[in-house]
């Protein structure tokens, strides 16, 4: 499933990342890599961006980007 489809509080393991290099590098440094456990924390009042947690780090990305990340529950 897509990462953007995770409901608040749900967890998933990252399978694939279909994003360009620049974004991939940024996300990499936040801990978003294949095999990472990602938790959907909360959403902005406008539904996007969405806040995720990986390890101890909370970060936000837009739903358009999150939908390019494949996760498995």
């Amino acid at each position, binding site marked *: 499933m897509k990462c953007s489809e995770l409901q608040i509080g749900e967890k998933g393991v990252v399978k694939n990342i279909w994003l*360009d*290099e*620049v*974004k991939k*590098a*940024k*996300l*990499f*440094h*936040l*801990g978003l*890599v294949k*095999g990472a456990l990602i938790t959907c*924390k*909360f*959403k*902005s*009042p*406008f*539904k*996007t*961006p969405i*806040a995720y947690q990986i*390890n*101890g*780090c*909370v*970060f*936000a*990305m*837009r739903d358009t*980007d999150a939908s390019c990340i494949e996760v498995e529950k």
Partner: protein
Amino acid sequence: MKKRVACLIGNPNVGKSSLFNMLTGSMQHTGNWTGKTVANEKAIVEYKDTIWELVDLPGTYSLMGESAEEKVASAFVLKNAYDVAIVVADATNLERSMEIILEVLDVTKKVIICLNLIDEAHKRNIIIDDKKLATILKCPIILTSAKEKKGLKELLETMNTYQSSSSYQSKHPECMERFYKYMQNKYHFSKGQSWHILETNSSFQDEVISFYQKMISKEMIRESYHEMNKNIVKDIIIRKGEKEKKEDKIWNFLFSNRLTSIPLLLIFLFIILWLTIYLSNIPSELLFSFFSFLEKPLNNILSFLPSWLLNPLLYGGYRTLYWVVSVMLPPMLIFFPLFSLLEDYGLLPRIAFNLDKPFQKCGSCGKQSLTMCMGLGCNAVGVTGARIMENKKMRLLAILTNVFMPCNGRFPAMISMISMFFIKDSSIVGSLMSALILLGIILLGIALTFFVTWLLNKCLLKEEKPIFILELPSFRKPKIWRTIYFSIKEKALHVLKRAMIISFPTGIIIFLLANIKVANASLLQHACLFLNDFGLILGLDGAIILAFLLGLPANEIVIPVLLLLYNGSSMLTDYESLQSLKNILLMHNWTILTAINFLIFSLCHFPCATTLLTIKKETNSSFYLFLSFVIPTIIGICLCFITTFLFSFK
């Protein structure tokens, strides 16, 4: 005494700057968001028999970073011109800090690791086996907490005594290892320097290098570090059902909730503005009467000067100077510290997070809201702050629209307009009301920001891929007194200095213009008359337009200049009270429409000289400088024209 050099490197927002400050006692401002340190900060520390030159590098996740400040950091590390590299790691998220630790270990073996924020990690039930980590990486590990001043002595002691170097050997995939071996043998390059050469395409005329360049991608290097990271970390960190901080939970809930988030932001903005307005009144008056009291003694002391020199200096320059200072200083001393407290607390990234969607629609991103907030303090600060934007297009959008946020320099004039023409009483209720109206004006400014951003994005700037990935740091209690001290020192006084440099000469010029008479009227009166017809079309008059033009160096002097023009006097004079100011304005045919248009025009007109200079410096382009001047002015003229037109039906 030995002289040695140490550098501090680590991820953004791990408390590197705090640690640096504690070590050196020098005080640079620390903030709870990414990208605070942009250039290298240096300081000298003496400990026992060694003089340390400490270099605080900008925060970076990796030596492979792309942004300007990340490159500054990695260039310094790769040069290897230091005695010790201190890698500051975040104990609450060691997985992430490991990356940079491993990369630095591939460049130099003289590494000390600081596990910072260790107290916070304990609070969150994260246990780190630092002894095991030390045996794996074969370098000293020191637990520090900059907040509780823990581990600092130990760190300095280790820096002094640490002689040997880590014998840690990283293990990369085989083809990379072969390349590193080649580089080591032929050029004596460390692994880190080697892959950096692969990446930068430097001018090495070496076929072997270009061969490996094709084989080893950046992705592979990163993956390799990540693999090592995973293997090390899995035995080191134990997260025992991590507790989320209660504070984080509450705020995150409030900020992501549809009903509470936007009102909450507005309430914060409102409180800051109200406190600024309400608290700055009395000190402003005190300062003003103090400086004007000094005028007479100064006159006596300087009476040996000829009057053609004394008068412009004292009644032109000095008077304008203290006018600007006493109007500007108190609100800035209140606004910037309050803003910095919110910043340190960690609220600002949440604002960017919440407001991203509307900005996304306009082709920008949520971070623009932060530059706008800074603009409320000072547009020049806001323009510089646009460096946090992720690409060039979004940065330009943020720079060109920043002027729609009324800065502190414009508030006093706006507030006195509001209290003269829209508010009846001057009690707390009255000041609350005027803050509310001011908030309304700011909302108009926000609407204009969105509109202009959208317009510029549509028709002017080239398409660039939008990007918005933002870390949301955990809330941290700000160090109140230090924050106040720094925001005053770095923002308020800085801006004040620039304003003073500009206001003194302007004061002299205005004095001269008001006193040089041609055909029975001063030059200023001629200019007023010339502009009058244009002013009337906009529901203003010639004097108001001229006051704004002469206020180019500093918006604070718009009202004093206006008064000078109306009174036909030869120097700036204070009004007895708001009532007397109102009487003067009414005498010159001011109506509620004039007041409204004055407010609109103060919101949308050309930025002040300081801001213009900053824009020129930041964009390095006369075209954008021109745009930043013209766009708000045209919009201001149009809006004034529309209100005047609407009022003509009445």
